């Protein structure tokens, strides 16, 4: 065991059992999986992505590239989880990834021997010959070898929820700078939200041995957190990661509510926060930069600050005999922490010329302090020796099992470039800073390149103070605290002579040689470098690799780093589980459903439903014993044509247009005229788009001088309402016309068949339905059970039919009344399939014909276009190509062989001749078996169709393989003279 007896923020009275790759271990409450593994002496965590090299933990934070594991099993398994930010809980099960059969003996380690082939971009140069092998061999092989981690393929059993929040100031990060800022703004009464992805606030104070006002940093942080929690205007969100900055001052965050507990009890596991903040402070700290030398990926090579974190926060010791290789002052602090913890520190190897003041103290403790020195190579399957390069090309070796490295600090400014701003290089600090980011997002502390604790505290308070003054007009008093002003200098070290592989991107196995290769092959931009080598494209988005990679590329292309630039970080900053983004909207609830008033009535009658946009519509009503849906639908169709049937058409759009200029507006929207429509009459109408293509069709009814009611198709209800609103508000605001959707106000039922009037008359006692009073295309308002009702004598089926509307609160009641009264007439309910069959028999256009490609003339409605008025779409309809009879025009087609089915969507070629575009005569839009005619029929668009009745064409359907001959005929298959509809 490698656990210190005392110290750290773990709770030694609360031990926790967990397992890693099936082996049992113990940790404590407060541990992460990573710290618990280190405390148990585990050095091997995983195998690298491409080469399957042995890897240990590199860091102690979210930027971890190597410690990627799967936590949980079965449906709860979450792959690609960073062990460094996974809080330990009782019974946690973790598995290493990317190795087979196991971590110790990984068969794919053979990839290392093929390293010369697996250089950057190898897949652009290989797997090409022979071409035939691609589909059968190469692609399946690559597919199996690619990817990191595996999904369980089981549904996610957890719940996720969502919350919206609004504040004056969002503080991103709970370290000293963030706490100072939140306190300053919170005390002034502003609405503040402070979010930290850690379980506790405090940031670096939890990992370092620093004092503020003479107290331990962690105690200071706890006290500030306590005051923040006590303020009503401050919301403290621990375990909450701000993952992205979006337009409109919106920030996305995920709160891990119970990931640290095992059982969920049905409570949401994670919560998605959408936060609107008038201003924000980026107090996200900085990420330590690795050094690029040979073997720098060996287990045992770790970031210096991570070693300090494991020692100080978790009392876990990552090695027995350590060395530090640094180009920063902060690296020396780790040496001091190791000495303080009683670990043998062999040497500090500083690449800089002058040693910092600390060197004296450490030399006194027996640590060898070397300047102008570098580590060239690290050796051992698990680190056991390093080769040090000294001045004058001398080298020496040192036996160590732990090497802390520190190459500098990169401010965590990823979020600041989400909206497109690019970071800029600072020569003074040798790192990238965000100077031109979003105006209301302010970096502070280490995130702004102010690396000392004293600066962080000052920065946080000052910037928050300025924000408060901008918001309230009053400058608040700024809190001040005393602490040591520690040394924070560094000198960049981009290039080190090495002999073995030197890694730049640990997660994607990109080496320094890959960067040089990319430059030699002409990929000289950082954007090319990223995509060609995949540097920075892993789940860590290059947090520990970008800057090193860009520096090497700059050197290889002879540019300065400032000229070479860097890429922009994309949200999410750290991986976000898709369940959190979906929240409530998953599986059947991914979108809301709209139900008609008679929905449950229909369900009780055995309806099979389908989706029509967001609506649920009954497709057919199967009876027990019916073999399949065709038997049901043909029965329903015959029943309608011989008796009476009812179809719920409540989903169709319904719009009222009122006002003195209502008729004028309708004349401008429809191709035909409505200002002259008589009161109490209904008329079929067609609307065009500006380009002359049909937008929608429906029925317009006039109930009064200044009151019209129109219907639309279900799919276009919203679009037509928008079209009408745009016309009256924007195009012709001088017209006095008002309009509103009444789709939800009314339930509408089509009652169709020879017996339809009989049924309706016995139910609707308040109105005379005789033909004299209500002729075909007539409409009336009346009352049913005291509430408003309407009846229209219109027909889609071609039978005597009525559409009856009642207020939706009476919809179900009307359906019940119709079926009670209609029982003796053999009344049946019918659905969309039968409705479709009947309208095809009558040659009526519907969705498949109004497909966004057809004009009024194509539909055979050219003569409906008024020549006496202007309307939307008229001008462009008159373009020669739009008016040409050569365009496919609506006709009927019928099968020519017994039992022949017709395929909708198939094209039609000349009967004798090759199947070529030149011979393409048109296409089939709708088809059905016709019970009335006992053969299949269809509606088709055929060039010059109406002039070619009787001609035969050949079906062309290469995708599905259908064949056959059809005959062109009139589209009105049943009752061509329209006698039945007029009764």
């Amino acid at each position: 065991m490698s656990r210190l007896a005392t110290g750290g923020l773990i709770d030694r009275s609360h031990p926790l059992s967990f397992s890693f790759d099936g082996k049992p271990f113990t940790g404590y409450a407060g541990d992460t999986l990573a710290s618990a593994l280190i405390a148990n002496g585990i050095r091997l965590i995983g195998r690298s992505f491409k080469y399957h090299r042995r890897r240990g933990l590199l860091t102690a934070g979210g930027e971890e590239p190597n410690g990627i594991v799967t936590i949980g099993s079965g449906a709860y398994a979450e792959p690609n989880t960073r062990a460094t930010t996974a809080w330990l809980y009782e019974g946690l099960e973790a598995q290493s990834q990317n190795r087979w059969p196991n971590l110790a003996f990984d068969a794919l380690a053979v990839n290392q021997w093929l390293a010369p082939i697996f250089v950057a971009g190898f897949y652009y140069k290989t797997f090409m010959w022979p071409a035939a092998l691609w589909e059968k061999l190469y692609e399946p092989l690559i597919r199996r070898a690619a990817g990191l981690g595996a999904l369980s393929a089981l549904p996610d059993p957890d719940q996720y929820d969502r919350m919206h929040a609004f504040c004056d100031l969002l503080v991103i990060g709970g370290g000293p700078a963030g706490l100072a800022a939140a306190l300053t703004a919170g005390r002034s009464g502003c609405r503040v939200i402070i979010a930290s992805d850690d379980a506790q606030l405090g940031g670096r104070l939890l990992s370092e041995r620093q004092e503020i006002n003479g107290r331990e940093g962690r105690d200071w942080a706890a006290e500030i957190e306590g005051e923040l929690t006590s303020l009503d205007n401050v919301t403290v969100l621990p375990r909450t990661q701000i993952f992205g900055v979006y337009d409109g001052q919106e920030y996305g965050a995920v709160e891990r509510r119970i990931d640290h507990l095992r059982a969920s009890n049905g409570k949401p596991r994670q919560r998605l926060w959408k936060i609107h903040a008038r201003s924000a402070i980026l107090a996200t700290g900085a990420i330590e930069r690795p050094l690029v030398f040979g073997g720098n990926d060996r287990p045992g090579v770790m970031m210096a600050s991570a070693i300090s974190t494991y020692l100080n926060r978790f009392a876990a010791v990552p090695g027995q005999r350590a060395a530090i290789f640094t180009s920063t002052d902060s690296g020396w602090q780790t040496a001091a922490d190791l000495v303080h913890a009683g670990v043998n520190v062999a040497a500090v190897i500083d690449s800089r010329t002058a040693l910092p003041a600390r060197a004296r103290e450490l030399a006194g403790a027996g640590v060898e302090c070397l300047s102008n020195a570098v580590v060239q190579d690290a050796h051992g399957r698990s680190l056991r020796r390093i080769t040090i390069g000294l001045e004058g090309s001398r080298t020496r070796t040192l036996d160590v099992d732990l090497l802390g490295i520190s190459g500098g600090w990169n401010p965590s400014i990823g979020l600041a470039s989400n909206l497109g701003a690019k970071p800029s290089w600072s020569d003074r600090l040798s790192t990238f800073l965000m100077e031109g980011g979003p105006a209301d997002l302010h970096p502070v502390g280490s995130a702004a390149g102010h690396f000392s604790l004293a600066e962080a505290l000052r920065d946080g308070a000052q910037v928050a103070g300025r924000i408060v003054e901008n918001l309230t007009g009053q400058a608040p008093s700024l809190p001040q605290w005393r602490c040591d002003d520690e040394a924070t200098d560094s000198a960049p070290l981009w290039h080190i002579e090495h002999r073995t592989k030197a890694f730049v991107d640990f997660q994607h196995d990109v080496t320094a040689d890959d960067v040089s290769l990319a430059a030699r092959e002409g990929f000289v931009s950082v954007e090319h470098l990223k995509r060609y080598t995949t540097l920075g494209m892993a789940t860590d988005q290059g947090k520990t690799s970008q800057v090193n990679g860009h520096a090497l590329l700059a050197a290889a292309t002879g540019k300065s780093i400032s000229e070479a630039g860097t890429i922009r970080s994309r949200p999410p900053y750290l991986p976000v589980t898709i369940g959190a983004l979906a929240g409530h909207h998953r599986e059947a609830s991914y979108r809301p459903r709209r139900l008609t008033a008679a929905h449950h009535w229909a369900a009780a009658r055995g309806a099979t439903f389908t989706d029509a946009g967001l609506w649920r519509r009954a497709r057919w009503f199967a009876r027990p014993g019916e073999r399949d849906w065709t038997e049901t639908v043909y029965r329903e169709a015959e029943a309608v044509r011989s008796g009476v049937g009812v179809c719920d058409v409540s989903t169709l759009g319904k719009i009222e247009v009122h006002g003195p200029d209502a008729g004028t507006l309708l004349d401008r929207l429809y191709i035909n005229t409505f200002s002259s429509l008589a009161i109490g009459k209904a008329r079929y109408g067609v609307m065009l788009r500006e380009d002359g293509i049909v937008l929608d069709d429906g029925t317009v009814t006039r109930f009064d001088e200044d009151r019209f009611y129109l219907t639309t198709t279900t799919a276009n209800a919203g679009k037509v309402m928008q079209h009408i609103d745009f016309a009256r508000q924007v195009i012709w605001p001088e017209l006095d016309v008002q309009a509103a959707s009444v789709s939800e106000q009314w339930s509408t039922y089509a009652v169709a068949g020879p017996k339809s009037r009989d049924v309706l008359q016995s139910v609707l006692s308040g109105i005379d339905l005789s033909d004299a009073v209500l002729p075909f295309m007539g409409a009336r308002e009346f009352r049913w059970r005291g509430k408003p009702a309407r009846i229209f004598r219109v027909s889609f089926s071609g039978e005597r039919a009525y559409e009856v509307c009642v207020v939706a609160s009476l919809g179900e009641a009307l359906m019940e009344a119709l079926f009670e009264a209609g029982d003796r007439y053999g009344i049946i309910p019918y659905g969309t399939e039968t409705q479709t069959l009947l309208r095809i028999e009558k040659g009526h256009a519907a969705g498949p014909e109004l497909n966004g490609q057809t004009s009024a003339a194509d539909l055979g409605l050219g003569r409906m276009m008024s020549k006496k008025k202007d309307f939307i779409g008229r001008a462009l309809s008159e373009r020669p190509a739009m008016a040409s009879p050569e365009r496919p025009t609506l006709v009927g087609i019928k099968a020519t062989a017994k039992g022949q089915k017709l395929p909708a969507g198939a094209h039609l070629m000349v009967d004798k001749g090759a199947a070529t575009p030149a011979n393409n005569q048109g296409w089939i839009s709708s088809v059905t078996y016709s019970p009335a005619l006992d053969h299949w029929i269809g509606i088709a668009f055929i060039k010059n169709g109406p002039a070619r009745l009787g001609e035969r064409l050949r079906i062309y359907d290469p995708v599905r393989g259908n064949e056959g001959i059809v005959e062109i005929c009139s589209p009105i298959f049943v009752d061509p003279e329209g006698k039945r509809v007029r009764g």
Partner: protein
Amino acid sequence: MAETIKVAERLGLGLAIVQARKGIDADAIGHALGIDLKDGPGRIGDANLSTIGTSPGSWFVMGEQASDDWAERIAVTVRGLASVFDQSSGYCVLSLSGPAARTLLQAGAPVDLDPHQFPIGASASTSIAHIVVLLWRTGEDSFDLAFYRSYRESLEHWLTDAMGAL
């Protein structure tokens, strides 16, 4: 937490959309209706008759214990001044009340419901669970919301999940 929220449907309401005719301002319509009608969001009026501005010259109008011909009578009252579109059956109106009502609604609606930003009488047209909702505050801990009746089951499903998550 769920016990601290009460959800009740408001029945018997008369509902209508009233849109001003050209050249007619809110004062004229308000005068005819007997209330101090204004253009803009927010609820004006009382249980007998209240309005919520939803867009320029357009109001969502409500009346409690409405007769079967409530909308027709409103239309007669404002004839020549405004067009009236009966919506008494078109919308479902729910009342949410209790100490956790604001938090529950905040989970669904991307509108700031802080009492200083959204006081009694404030209204917003927003969406919850992909459903368009007209939302207004009726008391310190109570809100009403109106939405198309066809979405009722979906909205109630969201309410159940959201209450369970609090």
